[in-house]
């Protein structure tokens, strides 16, 4: 157990809770609870959006992906940042001008039926849950690396409720903290916390890179060294699979491992094979293949470790389009005081997250040499597993590298940064999910005359409910063995959330804002096609990875569709096309479309606000909004 790390994480938790209690006195109205009273300035809002956005996947996952895959991992950083261009170009100011609370409000305001509002609510909840799942999984795994102890009793099989009790302790702690602080502070408390949490995680990444450079890191030289020779990566594999001969190449994985593993570690693998248990698992090192240019040797600095030709495009589109489909990010645009401020916020977001994403791949590359050196010197952290100096689980890269470069203190800062990343993202997701239920359903349909206090109470109850649901997701992932099916699970699951958001919302938002002829039937059909299509393909892919026979690769069309890791390249254009075709066939645009159009693209409201000085940012603590 790392005492400094634990003290820093506890400090972070206390500060978070304290800030929520402090901001509580300012959360009086639902606009305060869901939107921080629409009084968040560009810099603060940009910091909060960045906190919302940079999750465990970014903090731990991007550097880990670069460490494991080289250039294909760097694409995560570029794609995550690129997504904000779509937001600023096509969505930000129109959404703010429309001036509502949530994406579902936009859908209702634009298309005018309760039906589309409810479909949007369902989509918001599904995307939020898809995004919440990897955060909770990240919470459990980080807790395990960092704290290494839990409070649930282990059964005879070493498990509690079918999962690792230490992991589940981490999930439980994070769910409880989130439940408490989001329900307590609402959007204002969450916003304040996100601003602080973002800068903490940015600082943590910055410090790791500063220490790397202080340790003699030279970017071009280090990259040349990492790219010298075939890329190798670790793999956890059963003895049965290890010895299974591939009919195409005539070789088994054990033959490939022999070529790259040190003789003494390979001898241990041979011992395990000789023991004769086909279900036993071993960690091996394997030379990697180039999926993009199959005849080329796979090296660190070249594309092709993760993505073939199709996926190179599909993955970029998933990330770039997906950002504009994340409800917790879109809701943030309503907290800007004007359309121009929404654009300015986005520019700052790009600066903040851009610098972060320039730093992450440096950490990933530095890990490649520093961890190997430390392992050879016998100074590598003992709480992580290695094969010949390569981490078995690349998600452990950041804490391990921090410990090597800066000892217990840097490791502590990184641990606090990792939890800050999870808190800030889960906080935003809980607010988004709670506003979908509390604002879009309860206030509109169940009790429209509810008092302000009752509305806030429903919002808080929804937060608690979704935090519990987050806990269930955190438990379910290892229970169903998803982490064994996908090696870089956190980054993978985040990409799924992006894919669902990109397919369900972005076509509706783009056409709703930019094409007057979009009809309600068109928008609903497009959303359903995008939502069901993307979720369907993701689950088919999961079933294939979990080796359900009906979804195996040789099962014709089903097998092919199941093999799509990123469905966006199909589902986004399909949803867009559906909206176009159905709208054309339907032709039934809302009767008040001119009025709606004036609301989305008109400037009278902003001119009026400018006259009154309302476009200036006030204090977030100036009491209830006007």
């Amino acid at each position, binding site marked *: 157990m790392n005492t400094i790390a634990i003290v820093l994480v506890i400090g972070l938790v206390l500060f978070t809770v304290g800030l929520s209690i402090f901001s509580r006195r300012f959360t009086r109205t639902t606009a305060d609870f869901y939107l921080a009273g629409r009084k968040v300035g560009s810099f603060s809002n940009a910091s909060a959006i960045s906190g919302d956005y940079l999750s465990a996947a970014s903090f731990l996952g991007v550097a880990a992906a670069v460490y494991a895959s080289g*250039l294909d991992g*760097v*694409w995560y950083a*570029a794609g995550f*940042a*690129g997504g*904000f*261009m*779509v937001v*600023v*170009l*096509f969505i930000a*100011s129109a959404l703010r001008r429309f*001036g509502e609370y949530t994406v579902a409000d936009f859908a209702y305001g634009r298309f005018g039926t309760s039906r589309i509002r409810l479909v949007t609510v369902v989509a918001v909840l599904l995307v939020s849950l898809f995004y919440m799942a990897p955060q909770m999984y990240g919470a459990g795994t980080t807790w395990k690396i960092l704290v290494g102890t839990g409070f649930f009793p282990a059964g005879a099989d070493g498990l509690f409720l079918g999962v690792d009790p230490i992991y589940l302790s981490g999930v439980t702690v994070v769910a409880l903290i989130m439940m408490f602080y989001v329900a307590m502070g609402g959007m204002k408390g969450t916003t304040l916390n996100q601003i602080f949490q973002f800068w903490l995680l940015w600082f943590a990444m910055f410090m790791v890179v500063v220490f790397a450079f202080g340790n003699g890191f*030279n*970017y*071009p*030289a280090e*990259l*040349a*060294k*990492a*790219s010298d020779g075939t890329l190798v990566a670790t793999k956890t594999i059963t003895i049965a699979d290890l010895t299974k001969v591939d009919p195409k190449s005539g070789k088994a994985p054990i033959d490939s491992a022999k070529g790259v593993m040190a003789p003494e570690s390979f001898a241990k693998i041979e011992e395990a094979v000789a023991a004769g248990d086909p279900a036993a698992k071993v960690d091996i090192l394997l030379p990697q293949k180039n999926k*993009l240019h199959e005849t080329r040797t796979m090296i660190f*600095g*070249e*594309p092709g470790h993760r993505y073939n030709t199709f996926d*190179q*495009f599909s993955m*970029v*589109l998933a990330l*770039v389009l997906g950002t504009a489909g994340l409800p917790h990010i879109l809701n943030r645009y309503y907290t800007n005081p004007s*359309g*121009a401020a929404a*654009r*300015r916020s*986005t*520019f700052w977001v*790009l*600066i903040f997250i*851009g*610098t972060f994403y*320039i730093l992450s791949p440096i950490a990933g590359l530095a890990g490649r040499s520093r961890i190997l050196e430390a392992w050879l010197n016998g100074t590598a952290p003992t709480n992580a597993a290695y094969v010949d100096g390569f981490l078995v689980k690349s998600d452990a890269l950041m804490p391990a590298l921090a410990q090597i470069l800066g000892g217990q203190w840097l490791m502590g800062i990184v641990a606090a940064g990792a939890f800050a990343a999870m808190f800030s993202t889960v906080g935003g997701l809980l607010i988004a999910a709670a506003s979908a239920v509390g604002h879009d359903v309860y206030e509109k349909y169940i009790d429209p005359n509810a008092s302000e206090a009752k509305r806030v109470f429903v919002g808080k109850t929804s937060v608690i409910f979704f935090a519990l649901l987050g806990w269930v997701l955190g438990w379910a992932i290892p229970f169903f063995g998803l982490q064994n099916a996908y090696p870089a699970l956190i980054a993978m699951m985040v990409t799924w959330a992006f894919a669902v958001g990109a397919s369900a919302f972005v076509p509706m938002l783009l056409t709703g804002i*930019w094409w007057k002829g979009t009809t309600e039937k068109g928008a609903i059909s497009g959303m359903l096609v995008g939502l069901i299509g993307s979720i369907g393909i993701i689950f088919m892919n999961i079933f294939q990875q979990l080796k359900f026979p009906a979804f195996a690769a040789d099962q014709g069309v089903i097998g092919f569709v199941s093999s799509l890791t990123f469905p966006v390249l199909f589902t986004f254009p399909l949803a867009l096309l559906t909206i176009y075709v159905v709208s054309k066939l339907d032709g039934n645009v809302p009767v*008040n479309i*001119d*009025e709606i*159009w*004036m*609301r989305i*693209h*008109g*400037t*009278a*409201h902003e*001119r*009026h*606000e400018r*006259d009154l000085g309302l476009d200036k940012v006030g204090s977030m603590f100036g009491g209830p909004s*006007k």
Partner: protein
Amino acid sequence: MSEKAAVSGKFVQFGDHIDTLETVDTVFRAQRKLSFTYGAVFFGVTLAIPALSVWVPAWYSTPIWGGFTANYFVVSLAYFVFLWVMAWTYSKQADKLDEELMHIAEAIESKAKAGGAQ
């Protein structure tokens, strides 16, 4: 929103300011041109990167600075600078456009008022 908005199928009014279908249409067209031009450049550049990674060996295999190939350099560093420059120039242009369109809208407004007063 507590501001009183007068709304009809033809105009929206906030205080002294009116949006008419005509002014909004002008705003919409100008904004659409700006956004979609920038959008075309953004998607052009973003999708050119994987296209070059797939089809142009010099792009992904020739070192240009230590271990950096053009591909690695762009994805890990230059792409971010591209995003910053784009977001900055777009925001400035969109602000300028807002400003110009407000003047146009105000001019149309005052013309309509003058017409109404006669």
